[in-house]
C-alpha cells in the first residue's frame, strides 16, 4: 500500500463542520435502553419469603427481614452501594417480585444513608424503622 502523510485529513475536516460527539451529560440525557439495569425495586405483594434471591446475590446487597412469616410480612433492605447490578436476584425470583428500573440510574450521593433503601408495605417499613429506632435508643448512632 502507498505510504501517505496525514491520512486522517478527511476526518478532521469533516469533524470541523460536524457536531462534536461529546454528550454534555448533565444537560443532555440520552434515553436509556429498555433493559438498563438501574435501581432494584421489590414488589412485596407476591413475595413468599423463599430467600432464593438473597442466596445468590454476589455482594450481599439484599436482606429479607421477616416480620411475620405466616402473614407474609417482609421488608427488603436493599444496599444500593453494594449492588453490582448483575440482575441475578431478578432471575432467581420465581414470582417476579424483583425488577431493575431502567429510569432510576443516577444513584450517586455524598453520604451513605440514601444507599440503604427499605422496600415493603408502608406499615411494615414504618413498623421496622420504629423498632430499629427503639433498639438503637441509648446507643450512640452505631452503624448497623
Amino acid at each position: 500500500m502507498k505510504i501517505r502523510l496525514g491520512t486522517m485529513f478527511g476526518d478532521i475536516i469533516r469533524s470541523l463542520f460536524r457536531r462534536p460527539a461529546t454528550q454534555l451529560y448533565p444537560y443532555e440525557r440520552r434515553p436509556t435502553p429498555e433493559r438498563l439495569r438501574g435501581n432494584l425495586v421489590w414488589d412485596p405483594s407476591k413475595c413468599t419469603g423463599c430467600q432464593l434471591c438473597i442466596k445468590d446475590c454476589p455482594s450481599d446487597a439484599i436482606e429479607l427481614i421477616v416480620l411475620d412469616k405466616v402473614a407474609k410480612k417482609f421488608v427488603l433492605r436493599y444496599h444500593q452501594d453494594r449492588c453490582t447490578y448483575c440482575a441475578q436476584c431478578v432471575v432467581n425470583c420465581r414470582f417476579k417480585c424483583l425488577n431493575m428500573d431502567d429510569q432510576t440510574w443516577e444513584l450517586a450521593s455524598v453520604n451513605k444513608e440514601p444507599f440503604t433503601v427499605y422496600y415493603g408495605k408502608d406499615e411494615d417499613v414504618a413498623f421496622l424503622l420504629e423498632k430499629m429506632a427503639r433498639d438503637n435508643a441509648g446507643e450512640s448512632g452505631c452503624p448497623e
Partner: protein
Amino acid sequence: MNNLTVHPLIGLLLFPGGLFLLASGLLYEWIDRKLVARFQNRVGPRFIQPLADLVKLLAKEEISPEGVNKPLFFILPVVALAAALTAALYVPMAGFVPAGSFRGDLIITLYLLSVLTLCLGLAGANTISRFAIIGATRTLTQLFSYEAPFLLALLGPAIAAASWQITDVDFYAQQHLWMAVTQPIGFLVALVGLMGKLELPPFDSPEAETEIVAGAMTEYSGRGYALFRLGKNIELVIGLTLVATFYLGGLANPVQFLIKTLGLLVVLAALQSLFARLRIDQTVGLWWRVGALLALAQLLVLFLLR
C-alpha cells in the same frame, strides 16, 4: 499603509507588552485547544478554561523538590516569561508599530524566544528527577535541531527586504506579494519550525506524557509551572505574529493581525492533530536532513535571483 504607534510606557505595561500579551496568550491557547478538540470531534474547553487553569496553578503550593538548586529553580520560570514578554516589544503585535525597534532586532527577538527553551532545558537538568533530565536532554536536542532551519527560514524574507529590522521587513512585506507565495519552502519550514519551537505535536517528544510524564517540567508545580505555560502561550502568539509578518504580507492593522494569525493557528492546529508523535531521533533527522536543506535551498534560490 502605515502602522499605528503607541506610547512607550503603555507599550511596556499594557500594550503590546504586559497585560495585552498575557490575555492574548491565554486566548490563543484556548483557540488552539478548541480547534484541536473540534478536529478530533470533541467539544473542547470553554474560553475561560486557560485563565481558570492559570488561576488554579497560581493558587497552588509550589513544591521545590529535593536536590535542586533552589534559587535557580525559582528564577528560571520568571526569566523564561520575561524573555518571552520582552520579545513582544520588537514584533508588530496586533499590527501596531513595535514599541522598541532597532537594526538587527530580528536576531534579538529570535534569541529571546530561544531563552524560554533554554530555561526549560536548564530547569529539567536542575532537578534530579529522571524524567525531567531525559526531558531536558530532549528539549535541548530538539532546540539544536529546529533552531537553524527556523532561523534560515526567517532569514529569507529579511534578505528579500534587505534589512534585519522587523519593522522594515514588515513594510516591505506590506508592499509586495505575500512571501508565502514567493518563498513557499521557507514558509513551510518556518511554520513547522514554530511547531518544533513550541513543542506541539508531533514534535512533543520532549514532553511526551506517555514516556517521561511532563518532561523537563515534571517537577514544577504551582507558580513555576504556571509561568512556564504562560511563557509558552506568549511564544505562540509572538511566533504566529512573526511568521504572519514575514510571510503573509505584513501586519498593517489589528484586523489583519487577527485574520492572519488566526488563519495560521487553524493550520497549526490541523497539523497538530494529523500526525503521530515523532521520536526524538526522528525529529532531529527530519530537521537536519530535510528542514535545514530545504531552508538552505530556499536561501540559495534567493541569492541567485537577486
